[in-house]
């Protein structure tokens, strides 16, 4: 029997795999698909920055990877290697911008209070 309180990370990962798959199948234009995965990478970078010191971090990594896997499975029209590269680029760039405080979160010092 699946318990939400115990298996929430795995369940959310499954939801994100499904979301990534559906999104990827619906986006039949290559440029839209690449833009979307770049945006997803940006958001993943932000999530990773927000959660990088919290424990457990594994569930969040599982969810990010889950979305990427779902997206890759549903991608029949574009290059899967480019999808991974663009996702990583988006993630790295977003993480860098957050690290340098160019993009801020609500805990940042210069954020409006």
């Amino acid at each position, binding site marked *: 029997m699946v318990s939400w309180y115990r298996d929430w990370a795995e369940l959310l990962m499954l939801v994100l795999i499904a979301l990534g798959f559906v999104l990827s199948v*619906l986006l039949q*234009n290559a440029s839209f698909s690449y*833009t*979307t995965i770049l*945006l*997803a990478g940006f958001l993943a970078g932000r999530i990773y920055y927000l959660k990088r010191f919290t424990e457990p971090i594994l569930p969040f990594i599982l969810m990010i990877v889950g979305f990427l896997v779902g997206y890759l499975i549903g991608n029949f029209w574009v290059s899967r290697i480019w999808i991974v590269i663009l996702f990583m680029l988006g993630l790295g760039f977003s993480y860098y911008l957050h690290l340098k405080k160019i*993009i801020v979160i609500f805990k940042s010092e210069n954020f*409006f209070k």
Partner: protein
Amino acid sequence: MVSFKELKSRVQTDFEFNRSEISSFLLAVLVTGIIFSFQDWGADQFDLIFGLRNLAMVLLLVLITFFFRASCQKIYGLSEGHKAEFKVWWLGIAIALVVCFVTLGRLPLILIGAMSAAFMVRQRLGEFRYGFSYWVQGMIAYWGPMANLILAILFAVGLYFAPDSYFFSQGVMLNLIMATLSFVPLPQLEGLQIFFGSRVLYVLGLALVALAWILLLSQTAFGLITSIVLGTVYGIIYILIGSEK
């Protein structure tokens, strides 16, 4: 609400858009412009010049709308001794763009973020029980959709006299959609602030937006005149109640 003279002084000293706000606004304007002009890049086949012209018009339109909306919210905030600042919702912008790609622009969403208010102690000295107020926060947020409705009526007037105008028709649609989505009760949007400010205000706002959809999209003289009259009456009642100090 403070006197007009005091409000003028507050606007002169404290009305501003800081750098982070301007950069967020520009990004939101660009994304919203792309979303709203997505289906207008040629009738049968892709036409770059036609599309760029439409995009430029929509960008101008979105800029006017966002500036007017934010200004209304900021000025109302200053009148109540609060400083309002735009807080962008990155996820919302990404969701709107992805939904636009998936639906090929058939479902334009505007999920750009909301105004967040901070209490200005200096402006509240001498007033009764000063402190942060959910009501004021809700009212600042409420001014957003109301500003959209004012603009929607103005664009509808323009559309009445120039029925083929792309600028006016997109202006009406943009403002009505933005006013509607302002009531989505998510923490990053204004809907939740209005909801916690006042349930009555939330329901009233939703009813006004629904009425505006019906009256303005009817594209009849009756609908337009009724919406102008109702808007004016609502404004007069608001001024009579609000300017008691």
